[in-house]
């Protein structure tokens, strides 16, 4: 049982490049979340989904887009990367009335 798997684990981008981060869960969870974690600021919610085909904005959505075409996958896109988006990105999932389970993160550097 893999749980929540994030791909890639590390990535370096140049300013203006685009990329997609993939989150996959094998627990048949309805809810999925994307967070960023920066030193001293804790986890901040970017976007989330309450089910297949749905997405909603979190606390810091600007510069990011998401899609949930399949229940098990939640994609986070950066259309034009900026240095301010250098961070560690975490994906989480849960079923109703249960705690969130997290992946091990994607470390993203934008030069």
């Amino acid at each position, binding site marked *: 049982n893999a749980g929540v798997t994030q791909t890639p684990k590390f990535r370096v981008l140049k300013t203006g490049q685009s990329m997609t981060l993939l989150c996959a869960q094998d627990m048949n969870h309805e809810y999925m*979340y994307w967070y960023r974690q920066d030193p001293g600021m*804790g*986890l901040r*919610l970017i976007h989330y989904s309450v089910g297949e085909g749905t997405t909603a904005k979190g606390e810091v959505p600007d510069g990011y887009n998401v899609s949930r075409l399949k229940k098990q996958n939640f994609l986070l896109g950066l259309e034009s990367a900026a240095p301010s988006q250098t961070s560690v990105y975490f994906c*989480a999932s849960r079923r109703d009335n249960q*705690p969130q*389970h*997290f*992946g091990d*993160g994607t470390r993203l550097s934008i030069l």
Partner: protein
Amino acid sequence: EDQVTQSPEALRLQEGESSSLNCSYTVSGLRGLFWYRQDPGKGPEFLFTLYSAGEEKEKERLKATLTKKESFLHITAPKPEDSATYLCAVQAIYGNKLVFGAGTILRVKS
């Protein structure tokens, strides 16, 4: 606006020296308060959920308690392997999201 404040930011303990971490919160109706542990280079790992004031939960050397304004994570006779960042988060009664505090970095020296 829901808010979570954790203190202290960092805590250094000697092995066996018991202490407590604090999580103060404001939320528009509490659905649940969550404690997570995060090791370097890893994602947060779930520890406890508390739902109402007066509730307590224990796991090995950890005990979490809840009042209407704050939660404490008590660590009894800690060991070096308890070293980690401990995160607190709240979920509002009508929400699907967690609001996290910035965390407390715990270092336990032998």
